[in-house]
């Protein structure tokens, strides 16, 4: 960053988060002094690396209520989602060919399901209600004898809606269908317990929770068979080959330890800031509608539709604040977000969406500045708009 951008307020924490200084510090020795390959079985460098990985694995498992042996390291949640969906599909091909998911999953689920359709799988994409909720009854009704996988996210990264995961887990467990949950946006923000939720597979990503980029995990409940998608050296119990990314794993472990240590405290603080932001925006800007569930949502998420103006035009107009107008992954697309449209919002209205993703570094003063800036930008653009 150069010059005046230094003061930019970052409010896009669903796209990515900075690694905490404590996390980076924990990682550092593993780049240079303790740089060994955990697969090196014949010397100290390997042993030290192996032990660091074990410790981190324990910390990650502890945060989500899993056993360390149930954690498979991946390069991130995109890979975790692919491993879960492709791996379960390939493994159970002979048992059935049907997958149940929902309309507002991350692209890593939806696109991967599309690829599987080309290979003969059948995919049911459940709709969500206007708040973004999946109906557990609809999940139940969608299950057929051919169903081999249910994949429903814990919380949505655009609109923050938290799904009724426990209810869905119960249904999946009762019917004996593997239940995968993309919990990328939830872990570290709300309490996630794989046992309590009946989750069989779960994707997480360090860079969404103040850990480093390039490392994620798939929780894989003991006894769930899966077909590996990256084969070779046999690391991770032969489920995911490749030299382990030791520094990143150590950083991931540290981030999980911090998340667990602080439990709900930081989430509560962000929740209060979030409420302040919501009140401020609603008071200052008319025709501003909240997307996502009014209560069942991530403590750090708001997503507003400002009518008669375009989201890109808003975020360009808001100076010194990093905001997003859709999913971090849908760059260069001209359409409004598929998530907002899935709520039944008309295209034109959906285009006025702005996502506010709060984080540990945001303060009350920043919230007030954001309210002021967004209000100003929306007002200016509305003066320019031919609508309504």
């Amino acid at each position, binding site marked *: 960053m150069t010059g005046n951008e230094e003061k930019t307020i970052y409010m896009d924490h669903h796209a990515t988060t900075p690694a905490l200084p404590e996390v980076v510090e924990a990682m550092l020795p593993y780049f240079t002094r303790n740089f060994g390959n955990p697969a090196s079985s014949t010397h100290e460098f390997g042993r030290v690396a192996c032990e660091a990985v074990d410790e981190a694995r324990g910390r990650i498992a502890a945060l989500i209520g899993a056993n360390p042996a149930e954690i498979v390291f991946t390069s991130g949640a995109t890979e975790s989602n692919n491993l879960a969906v492709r791996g379960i599909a390939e493994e159970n091909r002979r048992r059935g060919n049907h997958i149940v998911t929902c309309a507002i999953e991350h692209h890593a689920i939806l696109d991967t399901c599309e690829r599987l359709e080309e290979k003969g799988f059948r995919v049911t994409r459940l709709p969500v209600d206007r708040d973004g909720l999946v109906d557990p009854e609809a999940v139940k009704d969608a299950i057929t004898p051919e169903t081999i996988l249910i994949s429903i996210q814990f919380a949505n990264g655009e609109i923050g809606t938290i799904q009724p995961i426990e209810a869905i887990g119960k249904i999946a467990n009762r019917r004996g269908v593997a239940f995968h949950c993309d919990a990328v946006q939830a872990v570290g923000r709300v309490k996630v317990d794989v046992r309590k939720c009946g989750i069989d597979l779960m994707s997480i990503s360090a860079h969404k929770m103040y850990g480093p980029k390039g490392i994620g995990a798939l929780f894989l409940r003991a006894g769930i068979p899966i077909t590996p998608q990256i084969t070779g050296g046999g690391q991770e119990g032969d489920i995911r080959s490749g030299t382990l990314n030791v520094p990143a794993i150590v950083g991931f472990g540290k981030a999980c330890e911090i998340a667990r240590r602080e439990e709900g405290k930081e989430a509560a603080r962000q929740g209060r800031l979030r409420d302040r932001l919501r009140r401020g925006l609603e008071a200052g800007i008319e025709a501003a509608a909240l997307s996502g569930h009014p209560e069942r949502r991530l403590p750090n998420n708001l997503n507003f539709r400002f009518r*008669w*103006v*375009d989201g*890109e*035009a808003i*975020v*360009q*107009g808001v100076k010194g604040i990093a905001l997003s107008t859709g999913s971090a992954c849908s*760059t*260069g697309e*001209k*359409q*409004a977000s598929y998530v907002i449209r899935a709520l039944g919002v008309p*295209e*034109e209205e959906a*285009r006025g969406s702005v996502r506010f993703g709060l984080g540990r570094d945001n303060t009350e003063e920043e919230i007030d500045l954001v309210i002021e800036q967004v209000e100003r930008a929306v007002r200016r653009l509305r*003066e*320019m*708009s*031919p*609508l309504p």
Partner: protein
Amino acid sequence: MTRPFHLSDYNKKVLDHYENPRNVGRVADADAEAMAGNPDGDRMRLTLRIRQGVIEAAKFQTFGCVAAIASSSMVTELLRGRTLDDALRLTNRDVVEALGGLPDVKLECSVIAEKAIRAALADYRKR
């Protein structure tokens, strides 16, 4: 791999027309007025004052992205002082060129300006 679009890909001129749009609003007692639309939902209202076959004033209102707003602003500048024949010859490529270029994925957003000219002049002829 090719780099995806980023807001910072907009050039200075485009951003200037977005920040300081020229000729926003509606011409009083307009001789021509039309609303144009893009499939992605952009909307542009163009109003013109025409005297002796020459466009004396052009104003716009636009719902759309940065590129759509800048294209709208620029086209009102390009239209002023032009004969109607001349105006009809303006294309979105002229607008893009006058803006010093638009990012590839945003080229389509300039088309609304061309559509608005045609629609407004059609309205003029109908009157």
